[in-house]
């Protein structure tokens, strides 16, 4: 039985509109950009206004333009994608 190759990682993207995939993980090549993962998520979930969203693994902010490998995303990762906090503060 074929297992995952060393060039693949399993990722699930978590959002307020649901998760992609809904259960379990989706396989991606390490050399694909994180943006590809987010684009695929966007195609499957009713998310809006994602242009300003931030994607995090734990509390580490990831860079969509970099590859999965460059973002150092390990196998079996859940990454959270959602709105970024706006600046606040009383003057």
């Amino acid at each position, binding site marked *: 039985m074929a297992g995952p190759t060393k060039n693949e990682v399993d990722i699930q993207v978590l959002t307020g509109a649901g998760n992609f995939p809904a259960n379990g993980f989706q396989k991606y090549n390490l050399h694909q950009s994180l943006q590809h993962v987010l684009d695929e998520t966007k195609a499957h979930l009713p998310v809006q206004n994602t242009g300003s969203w931030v994607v995090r693994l734990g*509390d580490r902010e990831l860079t969509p333009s970099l590859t999965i490998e460059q973002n150092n995303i390990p196998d079996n990762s859940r990454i959270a994608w959602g709105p970024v906090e*706006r600046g*606040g503060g009383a003057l």
Partner: protein
Amino acid sequence: MGACRTRRGCALRPELSQALFEEGVSQLLNNPVFLVDRGWLLLSTAYPLLIITIHHRTTGKLRTFRFSFDDWNDEPPELDIIDPETKQPVSGDLWPQYQSYWHKTAWASSPLITTSKAFMCLPGIREYHTHFSHKNDLWEKYKSNPDYNIFGIVSQVAQVFQKSNV
């Protein structure tokens, strides 16, 4: 005819406000994987209160946030940090600190400012929009933006909390 209870006039009918609240909260209830990943524990989702304890990843500390969604979404939620057992607001010393988002005392620099308790200054939080400094940054500008639905507001508060020194 219902009473007019908000600062701007007549409130949404309570049953409509409750329906919008429950629709928004369902995004949280239906996604336990997200809640676990983010370290969120829902303590109450009974309208109009959303009470949620959040685990601070760096320090391991917990804080319990009480969002009051009365008049949602004509008004943004009011926010308190409470003791999860007594449900009473905690002292300002237990509020996190990060940039100028969190204010552990009432704001007393001007008699025109009505904020009379510890508060969080972030768009989408009622205390922000009722603060004199932000009187022109109306909630009306945000309320239709999906980033300011219930999930979005809680997410933003949680992110600022994670960046804090609590």
